Every structure is written in structure tokens, then in C-alpha cells.
């Protein structure tokens, strides 16, 4: 997973995405502007973060899960 380092920690770009979602639920497009990454990279990260259970998506808007909150507390 490109979002996760070999030691299990999140990559800087994945952390930036999670932190931005923690501020407020966001769309992929808004996140790309907020974190300064290309839209395709953000979409890829969002997919992996969702598969890892750290985010959920509803109507195109991404929200942090309790597991995502926990991960941010440990690594953020």
C-alpha cells in the first residue's frame, strides 16, 4: 500500500489527507486543493485509507472513522 510505510506507519501524504479530513469532512477535489497533491494521487490514497478502515465515504464526502482518529492520535 502506497499509503502505508513498511513499518506500518502512514506515509506523509496519507497523514496529510487524514489530518485534512479530521478538520472537516471533504471531497477528493477539496482535499487535493487542501493538501497540494494531484487529484489522482488523492483518489488513490482515499481508496487505500478507506480499505484500511481509516475513512468512510458517503455521497462523495470522506469522514474519519474511530480507527482513523486513533491512528492520528498515535502518528499525527
Amino acid at each position, binding site marked *: *500500500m*502506497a499509503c502505508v510505510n513498511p513499518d506500518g506507519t502512514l506515509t506523509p501524504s496519507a497523514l496529510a489527507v487524514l489530518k485534512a479530513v479530521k478538520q472537516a469532512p471533504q471531497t477528493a477535489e477539496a482535499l487535493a486543493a487542501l493538501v497540494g497533491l494531484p*487529484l*489522482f*494521487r488523492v483518489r*488513490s*490514497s482515499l481508496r*487505500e485509507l478507506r480499505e484500511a478502515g481509516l475513512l468512510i465515504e458517503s455521497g462523495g464526502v470522506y469522514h474519519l472513522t474511530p480507527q482513523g482518529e486513533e491512528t492520528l492520535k498515535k502518528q499525527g
Partner: protein
Amino acid sequence: MSEQTQVSTFPRLNEPAPEFEAVTTHGVLRLSDFRDRWLILFSHPADFTPVCTTEFIAFAEIYPELQKRGVDLLGLSIDSVYSHIAWVRNIEEKTGVKIPFPVIADLNKEVATLYGMIQPGASKTEAVRAVFIIDPKGILRAMIYYPLTTGRNMDEILRLIDALQTSDQYGVATPANWRPGDKVIVPAPKTVDAVDVTPKPGYEVIDWYLVKKELK
């Protein structure tokens, strides 16, 4: 004795570009991740080869111009992601040029086969130099295939993007050797009643089926 070969399919213009998911130097990407922006998907025969290196540098050089036009770049070859990483690092080390776009590591030739990039007459193991221009809705709008020996012309790729975007914006076509700022072609009339050769300011009427106009 029979020899099993992967049969290449060829995508078709103005149809949805075939979807894929692939390992790249920027993680696992899907074609649909590029939706809402233009995309140039291009293949090169192999990492650490001379013509391909000049092309990668040339693609990196036009990258800022492509970004201004809302275009992303995605490379591909039948090499591993480790080879890609080593090669782009080598290019930066030797030439100072940073490769800003992702590159697909298509070791199983899945994407190359889907897009007709493997052409056994040219090479059974390498992709030819293909370029696919995909619009923000995921529709394949143009494709170019070059042989292994011949590096691509970046001016033509930029010109093609400009022409497609101009056609979409203004509902016009573009003549041979068109460049931004040149006159464009008004779509030819499709009925007798639609024929109009009346002189109009800004229009160049060569005949009823060939009318050029300035874009303002």
C-alpha cells in the same frame, strides 16, 4: 508445436478508454483516478535505454505546459517498479531533470495488451512508443504509435492537446499544421440548405465546404 501469445486489443477513438488498475511509481492507480482531467497515457520500450531517456526528459520538460492545460501524464513500460525508481533517480542524478509523473510497472503486460502497445512485429517483449489522449470523461480522443527507433515530438503532443481542447470549446475543427492563434475550420454544412458562402467579417470562405474563421 503451438506458441501461446497474448493477443493485443486495440482501443478505439471516441469510446471509453479501457479501465485498469496498475502498480505505479506513485502507488496503485486506476485509470478512473484521472477522471475530470485530461490524461496522456504513454508507453516506452524499456528503462535505461537511450531514446526512452531522451523522451522522459522531454515529457518532464513539457509537464508544466501540460499542467496549465489541465493534463496529467502517466508512463508505462514492461519493467518493475524498482527499475522505474532506479531509472528516474538516475535521470535526475545525471541530468538534473526530475520526473514528476507516475510510471506503470506493467510486468504482466496487462495494460500494454489492453491498449495494443505490444506489437510483435516491432518487439515481443517491449511496448512500442504509444500515446493515448484521454479526455476528462474518460473517452479516448487520440492515439499515436511510434516505432522503437524514433523518439516522439513533444511539440506535436502539445499541439494535439491544444487542438482537441479548442475543438471541444468552440465546436470547430483544425486544419493541417494548425497552431493556437491560427484560423480554425467551421464544420462543413450537411445539407443543401445549410450551404452559406456569404462573406462575413473574420471568415475566410474558400468554398462552401471549406470555411475558416478567426477565434476571438
